[in-house]
Each structure stands twice: as structure tokens, then as C-alpha cells.
């Protein structure tokens, strides 16, 4: 960092090393964090970002090296001490209590007490409302957190950090789960925090964002510091090269699969709103997909993308209407079991909550959705199971020490591959993919893309939801845009531009104007 004022350094990490069971997670990493700046930290999964952040926030107390805060050497004995020193973190997997109200979450453990020794709800609601409004979220602070969307929950977490008067806010992958619109809100928030002198440590996989929001970028790889520089001095390709340590030309190129006959279509598919009458979460959506084709579904938060996939998969048999056709024949899908038997697979957005039984082995996870195929005389055959699992581990290049490994111990990218293997093992004709690359590193993403491409070549029809525009534009042959449950546009590969897609996706109630940043 050459052109930044030394006085502006709020936090310095000096030669931090941390070892887990003989493996160096961090190897003498130094970092300077500047007041009023967005200090981005990038690196693949396993690069050491999380470990470094856990040290800065007092979760790990044992490490080599020094942390200097405002010129003073500090050691945090626990996360609370880090918090009291003004360091807050907003995790990728949010830390809210679902059955408490927004206000109760924001002030959890620091509730205002009135003179009778009871919680002063009036003041708590008022302050929460103010905090949320600073972040452009206009909701009732009495609402239970479980009723909020992920993006809104994230804003609640930000409000929590603000209420702590944090001087340094660490944001761990803040945009991985929110839509483009909410990203803009988040960036506005970050800018306002910057102007108030707060230092942001911004961890992300999405490099495009850096050029929009970051002032400096630090690249970690394999626990080592590769480079720290102001954002003006680097290009997108530079960062990618430093992160992965290989040349950019290895990246994804879409292969052309031959698109043949139409295998899957939906017509006027609707999902009724659970409480509001005559209102639909999925509102008369129709599309067709050919074998070998990837249909991209794009939409902002609340557009009904996930719900559309769930409806197709038979998860809402009672509140849905419309028709589903497989190879021209109308079918009735009233449960996931029926969907699977019809040849539909559904790779859900949330790996840990919906995709995997985390305590199961890789082998058991792969065979779970169609276990009949490893049965012999009514009993599970270890031989058949091993063969099936081994086959997919090789085909999908799943990195695991053995097929008996518990899936919880795999990296995010490999967990995702296990889920894909589970669905491929059901021999599907149609694969529904919901945000398949959420929260996984660049390399794993590229492997997923390559895989999708291979699958289409093998004749699968794929419907893929993604909230990353560059991703959906690279992968999809056609893009259907949803907005507030309605289908607002359909683009072919060639017609689609980020601006057109975004325009179709923004609900009319949003006043925000999208400006292309790339």
C-alpha cells in the first residue's frame, strides 16, 4: 500500500501464522486495514481468509504474530473482547435467532431496560427502526426474523453491527445470498459506512464487485499473502491469476450441445400465496426446455425462482395449478418421490439445510435418492454401493479421502458435487439447479460449469436458477426472467445483455434504477 496515509491505519496484523494439526492455515500473513476504506480480502476456499478473520474476531486465541489496533498491541481472549474493541463480523451463514423479532435480534444481550427492570420494547423498536432505515430497510422491527428473506436478514445483521458502534466491520461473502437489487443497497450501505470512517474488511468470491466497491485488495493463497494493492493498480484478470495461480484461459468455455427434441415444458404453472387470496408466488409461468439445453431462470429476491422449481418438483401439490409436460405427455407431480420417478432431479440452493444429510458418508449420500439400485435380495450391497459411489467420485472428480468420508468434512464445492452425483444416480432427464455455485470457490464453480456442459452434451435438459448475471449469461442457452412471480421476459443467448435482463427483473414497485457497472 503505497499511496495511503499511515495515520489512517486502524488495524494491523503482523506476520500472523496459525497451524492446525501440522498444516499451516496461515503462513506469516500481514495485513493493514485502513479507516474509511473497503479492504477486500480474496482467495479461494482454503486460502486462509476465514482463519484470519477468526483470529481478528477473537474466535481463535492461539496464533503467532501480532495484532495492532490503533497503534496498540491487542490480544482478544474471546469474541466479546473483539466486539468491545469495535470489531464486528457479518457471517455468510447468518447468525440470527429465527423466532425472535428483528429488534430482539439486533439488541440481543444488550436489551434496553426500563426503570422496572423490564425490557424497554418501545425504545428497542424505535432504535431498531432507525438503524434499519439507515440501511434502507423499511420493515416493522416487531416482525419475526424467520419471516424475512435472506437479504433482509443480512441487513438486520448489519444493523446489529452498527448498533455495536463497530469501527471495523468484517463482511464475509455478503453478496453470496442476495439479489442484484440488494447488492446495490448493500453497496450504498458500505459507502455510507465508509464516509463515517468505518473500516470494512470485505471478503468475496465475486471479483466484479471489487471494482465497484473496494479501495484495496489483498490476495491470499494457500495461507500465504500473495499481494496487497490498491484497486486501481490491478485488473480483474490479475486478481484471478493471483488467486488460482494459473492462467485465465483455463476458464469456462461453453460447449455446444446439440439441442434436439423438447423434453420438458410447463404451462401456466401457478403457486398460490399461502395467505393472500388471489395472489400468486408463481404466476402463470410457461416455458419449454429441449434435451441438451440449459434454461436460465433469473430473478431478484422474491421473484419466485426457488418456489417455481419447488412447484415443478411436487413440493406444493395442494396450492399449485397448471400443467407439466414430459416429452409431450402431461404428468401429475404431487410429491418429490413422483418427480424423481418421472426423471426430475432438484439440486437445492441450500446444501446444508436441504441438499445433504451431513453426517452421512459420501457413498450413502450418493445412493440415497435411488437406493433400489444398490439392493440385492432386499439388502443393501456394499459392493454395489461402492461401485456406484466410486464411479461418481471419479466422473465428477469429487475430492474426498474415501467414499466412507462423512460429507460434512468435505469442502463446499465437493459437497455440491456429491449432491449432483446423488441426482445423476437417479438417472434424471431434467435437472433443476437452484444457485448451484453459491458460496463455492472459483475453481469449484468452473468445475460445476464444466459439469453442466457435459451433462447437456449427454442429453439432459437443465433448468438453472442463478442470481449472478455473468454466470447465467455464460451458462444458459435461453434466459427466462421472473419478477414478482411473473414471467417478464425471455431471451435467447444472443439477445441477452445484463441491462436488458436486469430491466425485466426489477419489479415495478422498485424505484431503483439499475446502472450497468461492468
Amino acid at each position, binding site marked *: 500500500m503505497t499511496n495511503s496515509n499511515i495515520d489512517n491505519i486502524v488495524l494491523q496484523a503482523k506476520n500472523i501464522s496459525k497451524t*492446525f*494439526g501440522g*498444516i499451516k492455515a496461515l503462513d506469516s500473513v500481514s495485513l493493514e486495514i485502513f479507516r474509511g476504506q473497503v479492504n477486500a480480502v480474496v482467495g479461494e476456499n482454503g486460502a486462509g481468509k476465514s482463519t484470519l478473520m477468526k483470529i481478528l474476531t477473537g474466535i481463535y486465541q492461539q496464533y503467532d504474530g501480532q495484532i495492532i489496533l490503533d497503534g496498540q498491541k491487542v490480544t482478544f481472549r474471546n469474541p466479546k473482547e473483539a466486539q468491545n474493541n469495535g470489531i464486528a463480523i457479518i457471517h455468510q451463514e447468518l447468525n440470527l435467532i429465527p423466532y425472535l423479532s428483528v429488534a430482539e435480534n439486533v439488541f440481543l444481550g444488550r436489551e434496553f431496560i426500563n426503570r422496572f427492570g423490564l425490557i424497554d420494547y418501545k425504545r428497542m423498536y424505535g432504535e431498531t427502526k432507525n438503524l434499519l432505515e439507515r440501511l434502507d430497510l423499511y420493515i416493522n422491527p416487531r416482525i419475526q426474523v424467520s419471516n424475512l428473506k435472506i437479504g433482509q436478514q443480512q441487513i438486520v445483521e448489519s444493523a446489529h453491527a452498527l448498533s455495536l458502534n463497530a469501527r471495523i466491520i468484517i463482511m464475509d461473502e455478503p453478496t453470496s445470498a442476495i439479489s442484484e437489487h440488494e447488492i446495490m443497497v448493500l453497496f450504498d450501505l458500505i459507502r455510507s459506512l465508509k464516509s463515517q470512517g468505518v473500516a470494512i474488511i470485505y471478503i468475496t468470491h465475486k471479483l466484479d464487485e471489487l471494482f465497484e466497491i473496494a479501495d484495496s485488495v489483498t490476495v491470499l493463497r494457500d495461507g500465504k499473502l500473495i499481494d496487497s494493492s490498491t484497486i486501481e493498480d490491478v485488473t480483474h484478470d490479475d486478481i484471478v491469476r493471483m488467486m488460482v495461480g494459473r492462467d485465465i484461459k483455463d476458464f469456462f468455455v461453453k460447449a455446444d450441445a446439440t439441442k434436439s427434441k423438447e423434453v420438458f415444458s410447463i404451462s401456466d404453472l401457478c403457486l398460490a400465496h399461502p395467505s393472500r387470496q388471489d395472489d400468486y408466488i408463481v404466476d402463470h409461468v410457461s416455458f419449454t426446455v429441449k434435451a441438451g439445453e440449459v434454461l436460465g431462470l433469473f430473478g431478484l429476491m422474491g421473484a419466485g425462482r426457488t418456489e417455481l422449481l419447488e412447484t415443478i*418438483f411436487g*413440493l406444493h401439490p395442494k396450492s399449485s395449478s397448471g400443467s407439466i409436460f414430459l416429452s409431450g405427455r402431461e404428468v401429475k407431480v404431487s*410429491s*418429490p*418421490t413422483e*418427480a*424423481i*420417478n418421472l426423471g426430475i432431479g*432438484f439440486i*437445492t440452493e441450500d446444501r446444508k*439445510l*436441504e*441438499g*445433504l*444429510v*451431513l*453426517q*452421512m458418508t459420501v457413498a*450413502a449420500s450418493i445412493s*440415497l*435418492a*435411488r*437406493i*433400489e439400485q444398490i*439392493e440385492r435380495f*432386499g*439388502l*443393501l450391497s456394499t459392493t454395489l454401493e461402492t461401485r456406484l459411489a466410486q464411479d461418481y467420485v471419479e466422473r465428477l472428480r469429487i475430492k474426498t*479421502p474415501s467414499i466412507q*468420508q462423512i460429507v460434512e*468434512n468435505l469442502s463446499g464445492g465437493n459437497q455440491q458435487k456429491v449432491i449432483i452425483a*446423488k441426482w445423476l444416480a*437417479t438417472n434424471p432427464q431434467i435437472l433443476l439447479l437452484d444457485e448451484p455455485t453459491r458460496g463455492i470457490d472459483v475453481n469449484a464453480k468452473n468445475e460445476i460449469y464444466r459439469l453442466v456442459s457435459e451433462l447437456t452434451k449427454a442429453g439432459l435438459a437443465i433448468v438453472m436458477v442463478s442470481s449472478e448475471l455473468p454466470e447465467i449469461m455464460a451458462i444458459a442457452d435461453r434466459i427466462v426472467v421472473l419478477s414478482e412471480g411473473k414471467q417478464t421476459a425471455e431471451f435467447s443467448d444472443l439477445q441477452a445483455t445484463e441491462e436488458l435482463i436486469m430491466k425485466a427483473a426489477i419489479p415495478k414497485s422498485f424505484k431503483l434504477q439499475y446502472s450497468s457497472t461492468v
Partner: protein
Amino acid sequence: MLELKGHKEILVKFQSLLALSLMVVIFSICAEGFFTKDNFWLVLRQVSVNTCLSVGMTLVILTGGIDLSVGSILALSGAIMAGLFKNGLEFPVFNLFIGFTLIGAVIAGLVVGSFLGFFNGWMITRFKIPPFVATLAMLTIARGLTELWTGGAAITGLSKTFGYLGTGWFLGVPVQVWACAAIVVIVVIILRKTRFGRYIYAVGGNERAAKLSGLNVSRIKLLVYTITGALSAVGGLIVTSKLNSATPTAGDGYELDSIAAVVIGGTSLSGGKGSVLGTILGALIIGVLNSGLIILQVPPFWQKVIKGFVILLAVAIDKLNTKEH
């Protein structure tokens, strides 16, 4: 690091075995008459009823549920068997009497036990009543039905053949131990080698993921509660046969011993993780503890206190071991 984890898991399993061996050694030294052939069989016979219940409880807990009604179902099934066998079924209104053979009475008891288990499962899956509440209600219902059926008094004077299961020996091993071993073997095979067993782990590990993988979660739970009801009835058969009578208070509090065995055996109360073999070790630990304390003439009230602390100790050690970093 991953390799180490594997070793650790083995260590945790080994640990209950170690605790059991340690207890056996200590009691053998301190308690005269503990380490004898007679006492060995006595302990196993005493453990066998709890084992029946605990094996069923393991299945339920693996799905993330709980069954508080096992003791009451045990009592009702036992009473039905004894009552039908001894008195038959009389319908004075229709001037009808149905007599029961031993086998018929036993089957009827097993059917009743299974049905009550099924009813638990139905309440839980159809009406979404939490397992704790549904089976708590059944605990009272089945106990009340037992009292109604027996009129509050023990049904005694059953035949010698009835007593064979509870008191007889076969090839030098008590018949009830054979019965128990058979149940254990069958359930272990179900859990390890069948689709249903795999599904039990999946449902308990992540119900949503299981459902999305096409599993019929309700049917799996229904079956698990039904099996647990049936196993409780087997427990009722053993108890009734052993005492040669059915008492309305039989099995009172047994649900706690069986939950204790499951927990000491390392099965996670949140589901998806655990094994029947662990539960067997848990049941043996409780059995050995009971026997040792009785031989040492520890007052009964103190026995309870000690047993409680053993449960805490077992789970605390387990938690300390599985804690990361």
C-alpha cells in the same frame, strides 16, 4: 486430520466398552458375589427387557423423535396377553366368549403394542404433534387402559409354559437372552443393510433433505413408532412371563432407563447419529451398575442418585470428545 477423526470415532465407541469393563473390574473387586456365573446371567436377564425397549428407542431417537410411552405399552401388552390367556374375552351382551391359546394371546398383545405404537406415529406424522407430547399422552392413555383392563389388580396364575420365555433356559442360556439377541441381530441388520435403515438415519440427520430426496418421511416415522410399540410388547411378554403375572404398574419408569441406555450408548438426541450396539453397551452399563450397587447394599435412593450422575458423566465425556478444536 481426517484420518485422526476416524480414530477418534473408534475411540468414542471403545470408550463405553472401556467404561463397562472398568465398572466390571471395580465391582468384581469391591462387591463379593458380583463376578460369578449366576450374577452374570442375572444381569443379562435383567438387562434384556430394557434392551428390547432401548433398541426400539434407538430407532425412534435416530429419527429425531422420542417415545415416552414404552413402559406403559409394555404394561398394557403384558396385561392383554395375561388376561386373554387366562380369562379369554367375554361379551356378555352378545352372550359371546372367545378363548385364547397361549400363542393367540401373545399375538394379540403384540398386535395391541404395535397398534399403540402406530397410533403414536400417526399422531406425530398426520397431526404434527411433537413426539414428546404425543407419546407423553400415550404414556397416560396406555397406563390408564392397563388399569381398566386389570381392574387395578395383578393377573396371576398363568401356566408354566407362559413362564418359559421369562424363566427358561435353552442351550445353557436364558431364553429371554436368546430372544433379545435375536431382536438385536434383526434390528442391526435392518439399520445397516436395508433401505429402511438407511432412511431412518437420513430422516433423523436432515428431514428436509430426506424429503427432497424422495423419501416418504411420514411412512418411515410411522413404521419406526410401530416397531417400537411392538418391541415394547415383546418387553411386556418377557416381564409377564418372568413374573408369571401381569401387574398394572409393570414397566413404570422404564422409558427413562431406555432413554438413558440410548444416550449413554452415544446416540444423538437430535437424531441421525448413533447405533444399536452403542445402546446395548449403554443398557449393559446401567445393568451392571444396578447389580453392583445392589450387591454393595447401597440404599435404593442413593442408587438413583448415582445412576443419574453416571448418565451426566457419560454424556459429558461424549461431548468433550466430539468437541472440535
